[in-house]
């Protein structure tokens, strides 16, 4: 059987291991279990380990990993007075900035490799790479999901002119066990665990918005880097994932930017196994903080629905500046966090460009 032209295209984009950095945000000092569990899959890659500036203890890292640790002093040096807060989960963005590689994969330090439906351990790193390496199809939904997967294809009725797809810039993975729920949902369903392994990757269609979770991602840093910005911080944001919204904001920036640039975002595989205890009491405390985030989303969604970029915005950095301008204009009167986000986004782009 001869290869279809499409198969030839697939093979032309091959991501090498040395083009990838794995960024780990260390919110806890003991990374032994985390790194040992991931060793098989991480061992070929360079790790950027970013220590939460609020974490006092020294990091414990097992031997044998090609890695570099970055701490508060590195952040201070690079920031040089710029007002970006890299504490808590936001410390990973420093890793995205400091990397020199074309691709980044990032996984929260409380996630371990998952097993698929046959009991086989999932190589999340390889799956993210595969997602980034194969095209996305944002302009028309394929009902058999990812047409580039082995054993699948485009279905009858899928226009041929759209079968080349476009470059995938962002791969958003999922979580078994503790799903990424918000605080109210955690409180109502403290014992619910996500046990459903959905064996699919799909492109999130053009103009469809999604709640982007930063827990388990891969992206093209070269093109999209500036879009993943630690812009929106909740007042009193803490270390629980349901107290953060920075990834939701940066994900919405990334999606509208990808839509504008004519590139794609995928969601689905790989799964990681998320083991954080979801203590309902903790969730109750967080509810006070996160309720702010829940309210903000009601303003954020219509804002992003209305974002339009001029033709002159041709890079992710251009687009981020446009978003910050629009946020300042349209949102800052609603809540001071938005003006802060706008400032952060501008400072972020400056840092990005200055690098």
């Amino acid at each position, binding site marked *: *059987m001869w290869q279809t032209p499409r198969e030839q295209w697939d093979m032309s984009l091959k991501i090498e291991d040395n083009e990838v950095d794995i960024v780990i945000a260390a919110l806890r000092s003991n990374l032994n279990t985390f790194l040992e569990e991931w060793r098989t899959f991480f061992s070929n890659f360079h790790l950027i380990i970013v220590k939460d500036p609020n974490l006092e203890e020294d990091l414990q890292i097992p031997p044998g990993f090609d890695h570099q640790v970055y701490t508060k002093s590195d952040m201070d040096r690079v920031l040089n007075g710029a007002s970006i807060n890299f504490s808590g989960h936001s410390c990973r963005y420093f890793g995205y900035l400091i990397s020199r590689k074309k691709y980044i994969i990032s996984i929260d330090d409380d996630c371990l490799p998952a097993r698929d*439906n046959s009991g086989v351990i999932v190589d999340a790193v390889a799956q993210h790479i595969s997602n980034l390496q194969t095209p996305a199809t944002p302009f*028309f*939904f*394929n*009902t*058999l*999901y990812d047409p580039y*997967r082995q*054993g*699948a*294809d*485009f*279905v*009858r*009725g*899928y*226009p*041929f*002119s*759209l079968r080349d797809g476009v470059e995938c810039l962002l791969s*958003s993975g*999922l979580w078994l066990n503790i*799903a*990424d*729920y*918000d605080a*109210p*949902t955690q409180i*109502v*369903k403290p014992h*619910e665990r*996500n*046990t*459903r*392994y*959905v*064996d*699919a990757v799909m492109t*999130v*269609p*053009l*103009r*469809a*918005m*999604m*709640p*982007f*979770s930063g827990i388990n991602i891969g992206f093209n840093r070269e093109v999209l880097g500036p879009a993943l910005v630690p812009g929106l911080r909740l007042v009193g944001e803490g270390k629980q*994932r*349901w107290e953060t*919204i920075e*990834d*939701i904001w940066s*994900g919405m920036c990334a999606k509208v930017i990808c839509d504008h640039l004519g590139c794609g975002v995928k*969601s689905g595989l790989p799964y990681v196994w998320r083991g954080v205890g979801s203590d309902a009491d903790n969730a109750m405390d967080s509810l006070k903080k996160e309720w702010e985030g*829940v309210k903000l*989303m*009601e303003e954020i*969604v219509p804002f992003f629905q209305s974002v339009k970029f001029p033709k002159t915005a041709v890079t992710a950095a251009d687009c981020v500046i446009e978003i910050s301008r629009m946020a300042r204009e349209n949102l800052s009167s609603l809540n001071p966090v938005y003006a802060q986000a706008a400032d952060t986004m501008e400072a972020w782009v400056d840092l990005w460009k200055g690098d």
Partner: protein
Amino acid sequence: MAGKESSSSSIPNTPLLKDELDIVIPTIRNLDFLEMWRPFFQPYHLIIVQDGDPSKTIKVPEGFDYELYNRNDINRILGPKSSCISFKDSACRCFGYMVSKKKYIYTIDDDCFVAKDPSGKEINALEQHIKNLLTPSTPYFFNTLYDPYREGADFVRGYPFSLREGAQTAVSHGLWLNIPDYDAPTQLVKPRERNTRYVDAILTIPKGTLFPMCGMNLAFDRELIGPAMYFGLMGDGQPIGRYDDMWAGWCTKVICDHLGLGVKTGLPYIWHSKASNPFVNLKKEYNGIFWQEELIPFFQSVVLSKDCSTVQKCYVELSKQVREKLGKIDPYFNKLADAMVTWIEAWDELNPSAKG
């Protein structure tokens, strides 16, 4: 999270809806496949649309409650309007939607059998479609854990609460294991490919996104969207085939988006047993392959005015735009636009209380 059960021990049973749902089956051969479906289909009323030679007798297995229509019946019931119903093509099934008096329709091809899930359990496809139709869709914001109303799932962090009530579901599009629904060129390149991947998800196709709707395993709320499910002019005397469900799907999605209704895709799976001849398929699809390049941009840019407040009004408006914008591709589209209007007239005649 709004409106959901918080305790997993109180999962409501899916109602049978046996007096509210018709199963529409087009056939030209026989209905032997019904034997395998008997445990799931027997409570329901079947509408059999017999294509091809009306003098042939199609035997329906014992014990099913059904009505059967052949071409003579279609001509008798619709008179001159029967011109909108295709001949020698499974597109004729939409006649069944029109004559049904029920709220819901499930349509299935006669070469589709009961599939098994990964645990080996037989899948009650109809029950899953009913679940899909009775729970909301979420077209305005993509949920990364797919259907948030499924047991064991929910809306993820960042999903706006104001959108968690969702929209009414108008269409439930199921999938197929074994012979995948490929077009002729793909069938020719990959004749041995089989779909063995069971993807355990149902998801809403976002507003503004089109998809290729397959009529093999499809359910819909006839009261919400029925008149949009016209399967076009295909088969005998027509320059195109195997685009009937595609056409209905694009029209339906555009109208659902306009009226704020949802379309789901994913589970349930059925087992598709028969691979049709790819060379025959190629001849049927040939024009479609080229025409769809124009059809997709057309549907992507359709705007329906605010006055289009019912499905029928939307559909007639769509037919005008088809004539205006697609007529220049081929005279077929003028015929199709006429047929779309005829279809709505026939629909309203047969369904007077639900006039648009």
